[in-house]
């Protein structure tokens, strides 16, 4: 009786920077917009960025069709406490980093492997006990994922990631 149709369009990953008033509920507004309108969030980071704590910067990594990305930016921009929305993926070269803490529980063989991998990834050891380590590693998402993957064989217990923080390259602000 009814026919439904599905759109097939290429999707792309975009890193968005959103400057907002640092007020109660603002994060809920931003992520509520994503869930309410059916957009994806792959990464989310948020913290106040000015010294007085009046403004926060939200970094969202989202995946969508070019049309959806345009809509996301326009919809974010019309939220009252949103000051500016930047699309780092579109606006030129940018630096993207995330940080992970990775806990391993290892026997003697694993221990050596874990330390060797950590060194190769320039991870710092931020906690160690008789049979465990916590490594701190920063880098692009792919590097973090690779590090965690390698640690699986070195006794990975658990890990936590901050999500992406990103800035455009060069002297200009968003």
């Amino acid at each position, binding site marked *: *009786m*009814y*026919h*439904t*149709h599905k759109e097939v369009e290429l999707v792309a990953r975009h890193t968005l920077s959103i400057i907002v*008033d640092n007020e*109660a*509920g603002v994060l*809920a*507004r931003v992520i*509520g917009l994503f869930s*309410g309108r059916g957009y994806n969030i792959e990464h989310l980071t948020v913290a106040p960025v000015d010294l007085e704590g009046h403004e926060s910067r939200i970094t969202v990594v989202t995946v969508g069709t070019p*049309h959806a990305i*345009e*809509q996301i930016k*326009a*919809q974010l*921009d*019309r939220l*009252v*406490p*949103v*000051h500016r929305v930047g699309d780092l993926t579109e606006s030129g070269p940018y630096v993207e980093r995330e940080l992970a803490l990775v806990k391993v529980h290892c026997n003697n063989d694993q221990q050596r492997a874990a330390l060797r991998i950590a060194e190769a990834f320039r991870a710092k050891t931020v906690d160690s006990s008789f049979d465990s380590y916590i490594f701190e590693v920063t880098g692009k998402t792919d590097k973090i994922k690779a590090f965690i993957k390698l640690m699986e064989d070195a006794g990975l217990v658990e890990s936590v990631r901050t999500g992406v923080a990103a800035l455009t390259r060069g002297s200009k602000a968003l």
Partner: protein
Amino acid sequence: MSGKALSGAEIIINSLVDLGVEVIFGYPGGAVLPLYDALYDQDKIRHILVRHEQAAVHAAEGYARSTGKPGVVLVTSGPGATNAVTGLTDAMMDSIPVICLTGQVPSHLIGSDAFQEADTVGITRHCTKHNYLVRDVDMLSQIVHEAFYVATNGRPGPVVIDIPKDIQIFTSATSHSGMVKHKSYRPEAKGDTAAIREAVRLLSAAKKPIFYTGGGVINSGPAAAQLLREIVQLTGAPITSTLMGLGAYPASDKQFLGMLGMHGTYEANHAMHDCDVMICVGARFDDRVTGRLDAFSPNSKKIHIDIDRSSINKTVRVDVPIVGDVAHVLEDMLKIWKATILENGQQSYEDWWADIAVWRSRNCLKYSRSDDVIMPQYALERLQELTKDKDVYFTTEVGQHQMWAAQFLKFEDPNRWMTSGGLGTMGYGFPAAIGAQIAHPDALVIDVAGEASIQMNIQELGTAAQYDLPVKLFILNNEYMGMVRQWQELNHDGRYSHSYSDSLPDFVALAKAYGAHGIRVDKPADLDGAIKEMIAVKGLVIVDCRVEKLANCFPMVPSGAAHNEMILPDEEDRQEFEGGAALV
């Protein structure tokens, strides 16, 4: 600014007075008692006691849309706020400026599941343009002033201010006067000149242009409607309007093609489909307008004027987007247009108007007359004829009667027509009529209703009676949720699942129960008399107009069809459209 220390409740009342508020629609409760106490001994703001909080918001919407001023609502916490949610969502969808003050449990009880506690800012986050939870009485005055700025600037919408009971009692000496701008929210009213030039270039080169206008023209204010008339008449192009935009351009003018969309006219939809340049002014390519998207006006260049950037390219790709306020943009466009015409001369659209004449001759609103039974279309034709010289405001509920009203009532001016467009809220019309009547006490305010919709806020008979509001409820009673029944007939093989209006009240007796006047009419010959009586009676009137039960509203673009594939009244035994019905 600092002055004498006042309670939060007094600060709110003073702020509202300062902002020019004359009327509040509300309902008291525990968490707003201090505010109601402050209302008790003042005479600057009139409080209208509704019978349900949803109706308070619709009444505020009716007030706002008939005056151009924001409507104000006051309700209590918990159920007061949740009852208001439908009205807020309605105002959000139709871009109506409403400020809704909600009471909240005292600050220290928030989050404890206290009596009549609800997470109002959480619940209303998605159905308001913005909302506030007041945590500091020193911020109260600023928030109220800022809320008015946010509600009325840019694309208008509802704003909720949630005020814990303790904040209403605490005192502060901080107060503001005049509009307080939001610190970062600054919608741009003026459109990009280069884009406007490009729009004029396209328009002046067009062979088959059309203006497609919407509620944004009305929201932009009377100047926008005036400028629209000027530019449309100067260009000589045809114009069609959305449901929300009716009245922005006079219906009687020969360039007006009537409403477009699912129940729009044959000529409007065909002209939209075949045009070469479309200029969309304050409308948003709603699915009720476009029909199947991939078949929507396939060969036109599209210009889109909208104050909300997110409306641009949302569903339909446009060639020339102009973000700005309709009045500002049209003013610039008019100047550039005049200069262009001086240089290049005016196009005439003779061939285009000849095409339109053919579509018009199809007479798409035709219906079969009857001497025995009142056809709903006939009832609206007579209502139009007998009210056309009056100072009249129309509201509607939602369904067939609403579409017939849009087709058969003729609006010459903006702000005279109030209907729930985006959300499609049954129960909107009666409280909206109350709001319009409060704003225009001497005007004739008529709610064109269906017997099903009217029952969704029928309790407001109490409100209308209490304030002696001479609202006229003109109920087209076909004993069905007519639009549901029509879709069941067209899409579900006539399986009328739960769409019959059983156990209807005796509307005439109901009117009497509230001290109002009731009229029942079921013969075409008696219709004029009934309408005249309705107008003549000084007071609340219910007309139970018994109409043909199984009439369908045509033309109709079936769901899933292109916007030029309409079912016309004389083609009811149509074939199925390719692909069957869509889900919208």
